[in-house]
C-alpha cells in the first residue's frame, strides 16, 4: 500500500517536473523576444518587468492548459497586451527638457536633432491611448498583419486599421495607404477608463 503511494507521488512529481521543463524550455527559447516586446509596448523597463512578471505567474499557474496550445507564445503575447492595456499603472515620462522654457536654439547638430526628433516621436507615442499604442507596436515592431493583431486584441481587422490610421495621424506618420482624418481616437481604440477621462 505504501509502495503504491510512493509510486503515485513519484508519478505526480515526474509529471510536474516534465511540465516545468516544458515551461522552462519555452521561457528560454521564447522569453527574450517576449521581454523585448513588453519593453517596446510599455516603453520602460520597470513597467515591462511588472507586466511580464504578472503574465508569467499566471502562465505558470495555468501551464497545464496553456502548455497544450499549438503556439503558447502567441497566447502569452496576447496576455501581455491585455495586461498592458488594463494596467492601472501610469507610465512615467518626464516633461521633455525645454518645454515652456528658454531653449538655446543656437546649438544644433544633425545627431542632436535626430535624437531629439526620435525622443519627440517616442514622447508622443507614450501619450497615445494604450490600445492604439499596442496596435502600432504589433504592426511596426512585431510586423504582424492586421488580422493577427485583431485576434490578439479581440476586435475586427477594420478596427485595427482604424486605430492604426488614427494613431499614425496623431504621430504625424505618413502611412502607405489611405489615411483617416486625425479627429481624435475612435472609441474602439480606447479602454473604458480612457473614454471617460
Amino acid at each position, binding site marked *: 500500500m505504501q509502495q503504491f503511494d510512493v509510486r503515485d507521488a513519484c508519478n505526480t512529481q515526474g509529471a510536474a517536473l516534465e511540465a516545468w521543463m516544458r515551461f522552462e524550455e519555452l521561457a528560454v527559447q521564447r522569453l527574450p523576444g517576449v521581454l523585448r516586446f513588453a519593453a517596446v509596448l510599455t516603453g520602460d523597463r520597470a513597467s515591462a518587468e511588472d507586466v511580464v512578471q504578472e503574465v508569467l505567474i499566471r502562465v505558470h499557474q495555468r501551464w497545464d492548459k496553456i502548455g497544450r496550445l499549438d503556439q503558447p507564445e502567441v497566447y502569452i503575447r496576447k496576455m501581455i497586451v491585455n495586461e498592458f492595456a488594463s494596467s492601472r499603472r501610469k507610465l512615467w515620462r*518626464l516633461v521633455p*527638457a525645454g518645454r515652456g*522654457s528658454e531653449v538655446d536654439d543656437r546649438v544644433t547638430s544633425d545627431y542632436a536633432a535626430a535624437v531629439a*526628433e526620435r*525622443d*519627440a516621436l*517616442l514622447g508622443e507615442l507614450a501619450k497615445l491611448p494604450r490600445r492604439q499604442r499596442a496596435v502600432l507596436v504589433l504592426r511596426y515592431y512585431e510586423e504582424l498583419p492586421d488580422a493577427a493583431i485583431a485576434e490578439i486584441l479581440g476586435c475586427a481587422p477594420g478596427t485595427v486599421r482604424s486605430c492604426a490610421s488614427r494613431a499614425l495621424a496623431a504621430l*504625424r506618420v*505618413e502611412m502607405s495607404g489611405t489615411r483617416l482624418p486625425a479627429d481624435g481616437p475612435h472609441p474602439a481604440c480606447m479602454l473604458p477608463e480612457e473614454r471617460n477621462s
Partner: protein
Amino acid sequence: MTSDEGRMRTEDDLRAALRTLEQHAPEMESVLRAIDQPAPRRRFRGVRYVGGLRRRRLAVAVAAVAVAAVAAVALQPGGGRARGHGGTQTGGGTRTYLAAWSVQREPDGMIDIELKQLKNAAGLQAALRADGVPADVEFFHQPLANSGLLPPHCHLPSYVPPGTYRKLMPQITPWGPGPNNVALIIDPAYIPHGDAVYIEAFTSPSTSGTWFSMDSGLVVATPQCIGS
C-alpha cells in the same frame, strides 16, 4: 526645436524609434525569479517585489557615494572655476564650484546649476540637497536611446499642477557642445511637497565633438530615488 520639425514622419521612422525601446527589456533572471516566488509578489501587487532588493542596495550605494562627495567638496573649496555671474557670496546663500559643475543659490532664492563635465553626480545631488533641493542626479557617458524616461528607482508624481514647471525651472539650456555649458535654474519654492527634482545629463557624439544633453522633471521624493 529640431531642424526637421514639421517634416512628415515615415513608418520607417516609427519602426526605428520602436527598436530603440528594446533596451528596456527586463532581465530574464528577474522575471523567472518572480515565478519561483509568486506569493509575496502577488501580495504586494503594484510594487516591484523582485526589483526591490536590488533598488534598496542601489540606494545604499548612492548614499555612501554622496557622503564621500560632500567630504570631497568640503575639502576643495574654490577648487573649480568662478561663474560669470553671482560671484559674491550672499547672506544665507551657498555656492559650490567644481570643475565639473557648479551650484549657486542666488539672492532671490533661485538655484543656479551649471554643468561642464559629467562627473560626480552624487556630489551634485548632495550639493543641491544642501541648498534645499531634494534631487536625483544621473550622469550617463553615452547617448540615451530614449531620454526622458525615468529610471526604475524613481516615480513620476501622480499630479503636477499646471504651470509648475514654468515656475520651477524658469530657465534651462538643455543641450550644447562641450565648451558651452548645460544650465538649469530651479526655484525651490515651487517644488511640490513630497516631490523632488530629477536631472539626467548625457553625452552625445556629433560631427562637432561631444555634446551634452539634459532632461529634468519632478519625481516623488522617495528614499529609493533621492536617498535618505
